[in-house]
């Protein structure tokens, strides 16, 4: 039994991110699920077809999906959800009033309609979640595919670099980068995006310290797939490395990456709130749930709704993506099927 040995050793090599370990288990499963394939396309649709049939029966997937669509719509069309209130129309006489029939979420300390404030916060959160995940997938897939496909010294070098980033705690690293960012100069010029303290800077900081899990996932998938017969066949037909990677290997490595990406959208949204709470993320006049939680903290005893409402909304958003990711993982894992 040599196979479990290697997969177990792989798993123990990672540490921090609990999501990742489960992903690694996934790796073995999907690699086995894609055996000697002649018609790669047909096999794939059937993998996704099976997964969809499985997904449709999972309540977690529907709850998560409905929540995610709800918050997505809120991020794109906030004015539809704010019940006609303008987040910038504030009156101090309403300061920290509790929720009422006319103003469902009450008012914040500055007397702004809290429902509008919370609704307008969705856009920044989801934007950071999605751009962050796209960014770390791009870095992770490129670095992971190169390391896995070419092996040898390329792999050793890239794996060491990944180890370095992997050992750095995400929030601490992003904290330093975001604190340094606005003042940093490269050749005497402020760094674009990073210096602006907006959603873009936060997404970049999260990508910079968060791409490693995606890289390891892709790398191990590529290593598992590259020795399969159909890759050898493609190579024999004269396909170059780029074509083999893009057309033959990556499409088969996509399942665990999708699971990971879905859950990570939620994780990054939570990380944004944490960084903003620590004071290095979004600043006023941006709307952010993290900002609302940290502002409301001082009024926790007198106006607990100021902390509780954005907390619940933030948690529901994160939960939407975690639930969908969990359901996807189960659906894409052939061992779970009876």
């Amino acid at each position: 039994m040599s196979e479990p040995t290697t997969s177990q050793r792989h798993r123990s090599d990672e540490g921090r991110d609990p999501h990742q370990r489960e992903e690694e288990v996934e790796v073995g499963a999907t690699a086995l699920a894609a055996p000697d394939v002649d018609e790669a396309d047909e096999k794939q649709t059937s993998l996704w077809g099976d997964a969809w049939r499985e997904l449709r029966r999972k309540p977690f997937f529907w709850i998560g999906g409905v929540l995610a669509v709800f918050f997505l719509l809120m991020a794109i069309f906030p004015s539809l959800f704010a019940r006609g209130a303008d987040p910038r129309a504030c009156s101090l006489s309403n300061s920290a009033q509790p929720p009422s029939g006319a103003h469902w979420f009450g008012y914040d300390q500055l007397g702004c309609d809290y429902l509008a404030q919370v609704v307008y916060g969705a856009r920044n959160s989801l934007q950071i979640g999605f751009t962050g995940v796209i960014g770390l997938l791009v870095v992770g897939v490129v670095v992971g595919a190169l390391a896995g496909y070419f092996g040898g010294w390329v792999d050793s070098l890239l794996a060491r670099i990944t180890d370095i980033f992997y050992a750095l705690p995400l929030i601490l690293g992003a904290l330093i980068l975001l604190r340094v960012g606005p003042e940093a100069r490269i050749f005497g010029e402020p760094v674009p995006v990073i210096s602006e303290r907006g959603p873009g800077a936060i997404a970049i900081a999260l990508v910079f310290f968060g791409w490693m899990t995606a890289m390891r996932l892709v790398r191990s998938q590529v290593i598992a797939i590259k020795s399969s017969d159909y890759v050898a066949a493609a190579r024999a037909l004269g396909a170059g490395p780029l074509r083999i990677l893009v057309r033959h290997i990556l499409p088969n490595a996509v399942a665990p990456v999708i699971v990971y990406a879905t859950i990570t959208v939620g994780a990054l949204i939570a990380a944004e709130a944490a960084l903003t709470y620590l004071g290095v993320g979004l600043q006023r006049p941006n709307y952010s749930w993290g900002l609302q939680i940290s502002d409301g903290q001082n009024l926790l005893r007198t106006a607990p709704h100021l902390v509780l409402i954005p907390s619940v909304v933030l948690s529901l958003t994160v939960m939407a993506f975690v639930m969908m990711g969990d359901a996807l993982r189960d659906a894409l894992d052939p061992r779970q099927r009876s």
Partner: protein
Amino acid sequence: MGRYVARRLLLTIPVLIGASFLIFAMVYALPGDPIRALAGDRPLPASVQAALRAEYNLDDPLLVQYGKYVAGLLQGDFGTDFSGRPVLQTITERLPVTATLTGVAIVFEIVIGIAAGVLAGLRRGSFFDNLVLVTTTLLVSIPVLVLGFVSQYVLGVRLQVVPVAGIGEGLYSYLLPGFILAAISLAYVARLTRTSLADSLRADYVRTARAKGLDRRTVVVRHTLRNSLIPVVTFIGADIGSLLGGAIITESVFNIPGLGRAVFDSVTRQEGAVIVGIITLLVFFFIFFNLVVDVLYAVLDPRIRYE
């Protein structure tokens, strides 16, 4: 095994150097003048400023500064912050706090996580199993920030059963923060235990043991648990390293003066030596506990051999 450990130890060196250099370079990029900031309203004489800048190597290029820093580290010298206080002193004060917090968190992971996982794994599909599934989903989904605030409000402010913040009441004040810090990992321990146990219960040797006439309890306790806990033990081992470095939010919410807070405060004051020193230490712990786990694997599972 000895050679494997030696090789892994050697591989930690480039990671330590790379990680500390990365942090060092980021802090170096700060353009402000910490010496002038230190002096406040009354500017220091130029000669004093120059002497201080020389003492902290502030005029050297990045690589030279870093080289001098590493040379100091190798002799056990973590440097001093700008008020002349040794960084090592800050670390020895703060490390026990974060270590205690992590220790409490790990105990929660072991006790609650494994117990819930075992009970759920033994009765798959039961009410309790579904309860564990839903609870772990909630624990994973609710951000530490939110979980911290809400529990602080309910248990500390409203019910007043635990201290609201600080570490004034000894180990007791670590109870709630420890649980919050453990929350996400706890959920994973429970799920991992559940799947792992359910998998081993389907194994052939379990059927053999049952066929032999052993009762279910003996089979579970003597044959299955030990095997199915291997991945759980290693998960928890590696988690020690991550929790040490991941406690900053918990420490901030509950106002606990640990290593994460120290980094946070030092970032605001541009105390490069403190930031780099602490993060290098955290990276070392992270690598160390992962190495321990890999060695532990071979001890727990005799099928695994490191050549």
